């Protein structure tokens, strides 16, 4: 007996979505008649579960991805993902459900909404600002500038330095002119 499970998600998805649609259709049409009988669980592989769990974090442990967390609680959460997948939920629906239940912290990165935008905006903004300062400093160095005593004074207001060190660099770079 040999199980071949190393399929890529692309290979798995058409099969399972087809299967799931079929199942949903069957369930819907046969609902009144088969309500008493247990439906056979669709085949949701561990890889499908892990593909979703990988993008989430254990709601109780600190900084442990859900797909590898060894605790019993996380094993149950993975089972929950399996059930939801079997019920035909999409990845988005499942992660939304987890966020609703346990908060935004179950996501590997904060959702791009409201204040959380700051996590994505601040580093590029600071880095771009630094790059701009660096560019100006280097281009000033390239052409030996005439001595301008005014520049040796602090002119912090010209650039909105959000960062202490960037401000330091800026001040120092200005002095080099």
């Amino acid at each position: 007996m040999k199980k071949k499970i190393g399929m890529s998600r692309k290979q798995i998805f058409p099969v399972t979505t087809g299967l799931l649609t079929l199942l949903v259709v069957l369930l819907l049409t046969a609902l009144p008649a088969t309500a008493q009988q247990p439906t056979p669980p669709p085949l949701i592989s561990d890889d499908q579960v892990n593909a979703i769990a990988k993008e989430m974090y254990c709601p109780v442990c600190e900084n442990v991805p859900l797909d590898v967390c060894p605790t019993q609680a996380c094993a149950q959460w993975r089972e929950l993902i399996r059930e939801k997948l079997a019920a035909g939920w999409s990845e988005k629906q499942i992660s939304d459900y987890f966020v609703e239940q346990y908060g935004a912290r179950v996501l590997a990165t904060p959702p791009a909404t409201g204040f959380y935008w700051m996590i994505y905006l601040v580093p590029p903004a600071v880095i771009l600002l630094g790059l701009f300062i660096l560019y100006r400093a280097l281009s000033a160095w390239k052409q030996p500038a005439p001595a301008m005593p005014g520049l040796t004074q602090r002119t912090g207001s010209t650039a909105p330095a959000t960062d202490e060190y960037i401000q330091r660099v800026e001040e120092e770079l200005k002095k080099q002119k």
Partner: protein
Amino acid sequence: MIANLGYGSLVITFLSSLYGVFAAIYGVRRKEPAWVDSARHAMLLTFPLLTITALSIIYLLVAGHYEVSYVASVTSESMPLFLKVTALWGGQAGSLVFWSWLMAAFASAVTLRKWERDREFLPWVIVVSLVTLAFFLLLNIFVENPFERLWLTPSGNVQPAMFQPSGATLFTPQDGQGLNPLLRHPGMIIHPPMLYLGFVSFIIPYAFAIAALITGRTDDRWIRITRRWTLVAWLFLSLGLILGGRWAYDVLGWGGYWGWDPVEIAAFMPWLTGTAFLHSVMTQEKRGILKHWNMVLIILTYDLVIFGTFLTRSGILSSVHAFAQSAIGPLFFSFIGLTFVASLALLMNRWNELKAENEMSSVFSREALFLLNNFLFIGILVVCFWGVIFPLVSEALGIVGQRIPALSHIFTGQKVTVGPPYYERATGPLFAGLLFLMGIAPLSAWRHSTFKTLGRAVWKPLAASIVVLAIILISGVHNWAALLGFWLSAFVALVTLYEFWRAALARHRQHGESLPEALWRLAGRNRRRYGGYVIHLGVVLMAIGIIGIEMFQTETQATLKQGESLSLGRYTITYDSLANFDYRDGRNVSRAVVSVTRDGKYVGQLFPRRDYYYESQQPMTIPGVRSTWEDDFYVLLVDWQPISTQSATFKVYHNPLVNWLWFGGIVFILGTLVAAWPDRDPEPAAVKATSRFKGAEASAR
């Protein structure tokens, strides 16, 4: 009794530190060297005193004095002796003592050096070291006391206290809780001391920098004195980080080596500024520029070291509440804030004296490329720092939003996770930029390089690297990020080897030495330069390993009955059997046996297992790994049927090229050793360095 001895010694060290600070300042103010000498003696006294404290804790740990709260929380009867000893740094209180002990050792070693022409630095180096030490001792005495005993109060509660509460009796538990199972690994035994050694030795260059600022001796003397200290600090910190990665790979059971956990980042941040500093000080030595910037870098490194020490142990950033409840959080942040502001104030005070002696004349000069390198390191630092504190900021602002309804629309934040996708996306391009600079900077010359001269030096290795790129492309790699990474790695490796080759060939021609001999002598003549190149080669090897595992890792998981198989790529495992037994050190072991075939050929058995520690009720997943140069085949036992063991769930990872990462780490450390190895005659080294530099400049042209 021993607890009292250790505690007494701790308190005396604290008092001695305070006295030393006072005596040093008083001696300088009054111009009475006798007081400074007295401060020096106080400094020297801290090490033997803290040795008594540390040995007392070790004695209590080994002898099993469970009435001491710390001992009960980190050891148990069943633990082997070496783990009982290393439990000294297995918990917060003990690790703070350990930190102070190492700090005292390093500071004492510095105090013992010949000061002769640097005497004016001495009192201030003592002050900075002792203020830092006193802060850590203060935490140990008042907040995290490793000698607190457990007391049974008349109301029936057990509470830890240093001195007997009224009416209470000493409480001795039967056994301790034992060391956190995650820490029971050889990697975890060496990793924290290495990290701590790295941390504490970075305090020495900082102390000299502050001494330079206070005394006004703002030439590059402080940099020259501390050059080797900085390299040693960097060596230990790098070693600590690499060992930490290896430990995670072996023990944490998630198929990776680095998870961008705040604790990891905490140790990585001082490394980033330290690395920037190592490069940037060369600019000051050779060209007399970027003096302010070097000061900023060492100040940042110092405060990030303190921040890192605090973060790695306390877990305090996990939530605002944890932060607010513990006294240690506010204390640490006050100390970091105070030292940062005070250091910057001192820097401002000397701002005009730290003027650049030269101008930067070309954007392609080595100094300009070093500046760019610094920019990228600081960029990575910004990403890391923001990622680490963001969950706390978000949660804190969320609380503000709840309290003040007017702000509730803006501040909706709750606690969030900032995980690997954020860090990988944000730092990836910056790391790529660093690799590229690593390729071109060694070929640029100080001061003079132009686009033309640099181009002339670069084109040969560049052309060769493009050939390598073509080969990789033909061999079937089509992931553009991986291609870029491999190309950059090839470029850096070729440039570095080309540099070795050129210089060795020149020696061979000039002195008639054989090529290996020329190479050996070359490295001996300018260790910092060639040690640095070896480090670059190490980084390239590590980069290849990281690209391999990050971009090409595959995984699968399935539940198998005995005799069933699971395939991943060219590998197949077959589940043979599973045994479950208790082990004498207090764990229950479930150990599976799987046979592995590669392309249908049997290559051996692996034994993934799950250890369950009864005392701490914690499971540990230990992988079974088949390791080759090409890849690691990494099998985890995820679950099994408890009684019949008829079926078990396995998770299997294929980690291509990951061993290049570990091998690269070894090369990296060897390179650092070459660079940091003491000179036979340290004083004239400065003179030699200048002449070497001229030679190097000529060769780079």
